[in-house]
């Protein structure tokens, strides 16, 4: 849900249900790094209320679009993290398997000799 004015779309507060620090802090991070953003912050009005308010003020672009771009950016970062991580894990597994087979091979050599 968006709370803002119709005449000036560059400042808005977005109220997201079922989200918490996990998402709000990450998106605050990506938005902070966006040069179009002059202010971004979030608050959780009440701990037993399952919602978070994210305030976005920009240099002129509609806040809604900038927030969407921030989410998009975050998503791309996540995708990169995931592919890098998967690659690191499979590399590690291959390396571990190799050292294991090398050990076994040397054992075999010993046996045959």
């Amino acid at each position: 849900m968006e709370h803002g004015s119709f005449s000036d779309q560059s400042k808005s507060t977005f109220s997201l249900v079922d989200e918490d620090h996990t998402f709000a802090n990450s998106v605050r991070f990506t938005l902070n790094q966006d040069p179009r953003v002059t202010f971004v912050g979030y608050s959780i009005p009440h701990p037993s209320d399952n919602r978070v308010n994210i305030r976005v003020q920009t240099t002129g672009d509609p806040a809604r679009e900038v927030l969407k771009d921030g989410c998009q950016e975050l998503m791309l970062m996540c995708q990169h993290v995931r592919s890098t991580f998967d690659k690191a894990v499979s590399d590690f597994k291959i390396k571990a398997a190799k050292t294991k087979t090398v050990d076994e091979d040397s054992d075999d050599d010993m046996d045959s000799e």
Partner: protein
Amino acid sequence: MEDTKYKNGDALDFIMNMSSVPSKLPENLELLRTRVLCNNDAPQHTDTIQYSGAYAALGVDNSLRLDNFCKNFKVEVKKLTDEIIEFDMIGIDPALANAFRRILIADVPTMAIERVYIANNTSLIQDEVLAHRLGLVPINADPRLFEYPENAGDEKNEKNTIVFKLHVRCPNKIGQPRITVKSGELKWLPNGSELLGENRKPNAGSQTSFSCSQDSIPQFSDNPPRPQYSDIILAKLGAGQEIELEVHAVKGIGKTHAKWSPVATAWYRMLPEVVLLKDVEDELAEELKNKCPQNVFDIEDFGSGKRRATVKNPRDCTLCRECIRGGKDWEDRVALRRVKDHFIFTIESTGALPPEALFTEAVKILEEKCERVITELS
């Protein structure tokens, strides 16, 4: 193809190296940006500088460029077993590292025992305490094969419920020792509940309404759902006592109850950096080496009886700050720092999923959250 790539890179390098575009911060600011200084009294410069215009006055752009992130981000796996993964995540902001940690603990689903139907319990342990103990038993079943119970409108079918039965009796004989009931006694019922339902409908004779046996799910043929550990003590029975019950495990997340958390715990710490600002020699070197409980320092002999302290394994530093205690002198000799964007991440799985799969799931969940917000906003 390769060539054009090079050319583009060169062009970018050329622009970045032009004197009117200072791309680097002065060394002192760079230090404060990338390191936490762990001083004797308190850590300093603990913030990360996120705002894109933070260094605008110096002509340095602090905005995030995705290609920059992709270039600098690195993962190095250090240790991987069935239960634990330890890896280094380099070049990422704490905001994201912490999001992954929070998701691992509270948002990645697993299967856990949610309902316990007790037919008979004459043991010393009360029904509700026994039920709670059962709930905390980690279940080895891939949660990705199941649905959340809310999706089925409270119908308990083969897609959202795993049923186990437990029936143990201690014989009523004189001289019979007490027996221990362990989690291994939980027997999987692939055809669903064997207890009669409360409101008996014609075709729903039992508590669950399975339309087919879970036996037929291929992933279960060689790896049937079972408690991850078969030696968790649930109760003890004296002579003549008996427990008979049935439990239903469903999918859930750690936010609802900790029993659904897929990790024993997940944590990270920043890479410690120990720097000797001055040469520390002879007796002082000896003293420094003995001060550190983690054996971070080593002594190097360099001929003619001279010895000098070196930093051997800064990674082991716990930041106890023992080495900079003992006066201003020591603070001037040793600098303790932490690297702000280098995280040593450890995940301990409870067993349902291997730890590396848990991290991948966690990142996917953050992606889903983004997607949800984007669709909500459009």
